[in-house]
């Protein structure tokens, strides 16, 4: 176990013990600024003795006032569009070397290991593009609504952004998860951290017009038109089939807003479809067209990809719902606990079938479970944050979380999932995730059957 917890803010007596070798290494690793600041503040030439003396009297960070307490700060609007602190350079969207073929048809994962609450900062929202991303000019963007034939819709229409943004909007918080999230792990442990195991997951407040409003404005015939095709304006012109039942329920949104501002280009600016509870590929970005039809479409991303291979060689087609799932984000794979003692174990749970009802956490690999606190209000088909107290005794432990949704469905184990679906189906892996903690405090990814 590292002694890090005894260090920042904690006092040490003797000058020579001010920082142990191990601590120096640890500080160099993670806390370069701490070392530099305390020495700088003490004056370069006299650095070592002064720092040592300061350490005897107390924390130099308290005894020597930092520059932010003794100087004038920066004026308003220095950054007209505010950016995170310069100290927040670690949590970034990242690619996985095992996956990336070519950047235009790849994934960047969301750094779940450092996020709080349920809303994903827009700049950290995961990306999955099939043919690169575009920055579409909103003044030239159009949404067309038409029917696969004329009898399904009275009047095919074209809407500009000006017009869409005049219509009565709704704002709702929903998760979006790629169907292939955790897909790298179907057969065995493959990646080290929650960013790569679960990071094709984000959650935002989306604002837009219910698709139902537009279809009814065009005079849809619900009796005949039971399917909707959504199509993007980018090079891939991504298409997916969506059931009319979902549209009629009012939950499918033609969205332009994300977390209070416009969508980011990587997330489909200026218009994307929001299909709550359904895998991300259906949330067509740069949405240019909606077609209503009387049959499903078997598009490339529902006939060649996003189909789940079963052990008998059949593929499941039109498997769209993201079933109930959860993961502990702190502590998680690739992290090291600072010390024995108290920790708040925290994670997120979500279900494509509705609200999260309960999350249980195990510290012994699933023998015993304890119900976690859920941070409300719990939203429908949205990330739900859970927290649970834990006092780590320094012994090995295996942490797991298990979510239950309002339909009563309980998140399955790897053993249960593989028994039905084998190990090659790529998509829809919602198994219980396990993180193993060893004596050194290091947390690693393991699979418990």
């Amino acid at each position: 176990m590292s002694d890090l917890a005894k260090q920042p803010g904690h006092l040490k007596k003797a000058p020579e013990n001010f920082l142990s070798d191990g601590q120096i290494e640890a500080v160099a690793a993670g806390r370069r600024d701490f070392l530099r600041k305390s020495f700088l503040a003490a004056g370069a030439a006299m650095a070592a003795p002064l720092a040592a003396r300061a350490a005897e009297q107390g924390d130099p960070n308290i005894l020597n006032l930092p520059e932010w307490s003794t100087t004038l700060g920066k004026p308003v609007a220095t950054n007209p569009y505010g950016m995170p602190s310069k100290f927040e350079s670690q949590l970034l969207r990242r690619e996985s070397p095992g996956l990336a073929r070519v950047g235009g048809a790849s994934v960047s994962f969301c750094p779940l290991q450092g996020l709080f609450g349920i809303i994903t900062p827009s700049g950290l929202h995961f990306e999955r593009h099939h043919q690169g991303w575009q920055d579409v000019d909103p003044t030239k963007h159009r949404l067309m609504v038409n029917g696969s034939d004329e009898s399904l819709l009275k009047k095919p229409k074209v809407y500009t952004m000006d017009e869409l943004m005049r219509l009565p909007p709704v704002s709702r918080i929903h998760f979006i998860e790629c169907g292939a999230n955790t897909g790298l792990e179907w057969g065995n442990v493959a990646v080290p951290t929650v960013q790569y195991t679960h990071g094709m997951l984000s959650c935002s407040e989306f604002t837009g017009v219910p698709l139902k409003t537009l279809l009814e404005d065009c005079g849809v015939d619900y009796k005949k038109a039971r399917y909707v095709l959504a199509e993007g304006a980018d090079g891939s012109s991504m298409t997916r089939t969506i059931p009319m039942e979902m549209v009629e329920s009012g939950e499918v949104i033609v969205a332009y807003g994300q977390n209070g501002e416009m969508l980011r280009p990587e997330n489909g600016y200026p218009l994307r479809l929001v299909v709550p509870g359904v895998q991300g590929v259906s949330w067509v970005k740069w949405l240019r067209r909606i077609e209503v039809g009387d049959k499903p479409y078997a598009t490339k991303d529902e006939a060649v990809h996003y189909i789940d291979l079963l052990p008998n060689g059949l593929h499941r087609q039109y498997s769209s719902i993201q079933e109930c799932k959860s993961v502990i984000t702190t502590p998680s794979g690739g992290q090291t606990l600072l010390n024995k003692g108290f920790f708040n174990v925290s994670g997120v749970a979500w279900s494509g079938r509705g609200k999260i009802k309960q999350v249980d956490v195990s510290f012994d690999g699933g023998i015993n479970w304890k119900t976690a606190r859920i941070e409300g209000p719990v939203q429908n088909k949205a990330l739900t944050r859970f927290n649970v107290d834990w006092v780590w005794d320094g012994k090995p432990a295996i942490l797991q979380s298990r979510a239950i949704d309002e339909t009563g469905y309980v998140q399955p184990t790897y053993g249960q999932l593989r028994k039905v679906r084998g190990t090659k189906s790529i998509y829809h892996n919602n198994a219980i995730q396990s993180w193993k903690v060893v004596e050194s405090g290091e947390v690693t990814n393991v699979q418990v059957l």
Partner: protein
Amino acid sequence: MFRFSKSVIARSVAAFALISASTAGFAFDHFKGVGRQATPSEVKAWDIDVRPDFKGLPKGSGNVERGNELFEEKCASCHGSFGESNEVFTPLAGGTTKDDIKTGRVKGLSSGELPQRTTFTKVATISTVWDYIYRAMPWTAPKSLKPDDVYAILAYLLNLQEIVPGDFTLSDKNIGEVQKLLPNRNGMTTDHGMWPGAPAKKGGIGNGGIPDVKNTACMKNCKTEVQIGSTLPDYARTAHGELADQNRNFGPVRGTRTLGAEAAKPAAAANPALELATKNGCMACHGVNNKIVGPGYNEVVARYKDQPDAEGKLTAKVKAGGQGVWGSIPMPPNGHLKDEEIKTLVQWIMAGAK
């Protein structure tokens, strides 16, 4: 989902009743001044989807020979001359047998003998491939193919797959016959609970939301032993870069140092040229010291280092794409980059790509 489909049905019956009672303007044309009728030409320009029943399929035809030419010219650089692909791009052809064509089930999918799943080992609907090539390929110049080009290329791919003979001409007239020969045409099932609409028995898809696994919420002494199925392989621990740098350096935990203090020191000087090359796909086809699809940058330097006009020539070549200097595989055009960016990239390559 089964749960709300009942109420939905009730609602659509209500809606239907309203419409059939011709209550004028049931939310139809409700928003004055918002939206206008699409013209037939507009709908034609964008409505390019082709369904499994071939609704939307444009008329036309193309033969295997023409398809072979077009594929070499427009597709082979990424997918390989025989659709076998390279490590980077999706393999299109291969992996099926004559027997599969008879049964409509690709045997390799269940026996585990397939080294990789190509497009034709999976796809059950020929319309899917037609639709996708027409809307999205070639990758760097989507929507540049004419319907006849797509018929020809698809004929070539079907011939590679030994579904049609070398003298075959594919057309809107006979594509339905070809559908009956697709090796995995019987390979899909919709018997699952993951379709969020009406179930098959109500004219929709699937079993109405019934899950395929059933865990229970046991709380105490749920099992006697913890069986570990798999742990993180060593190579995977370090394959994702320095994990210490992927976590905050304060808070309840630290990122585990996976590459050692040494690796952390030369805080990887930002390399904008490499970033630009990676971002724009150059690195998918070129290694710094090795050939991938195109030559290694070291080979490019070796060939051009004594030519004073190399920079101009190479800049033009990268922009326009082309073939013949290094072999028959063409480089796709890179029109999506600014001239300045291409110049930066070429200068960086000629300076050793460091």
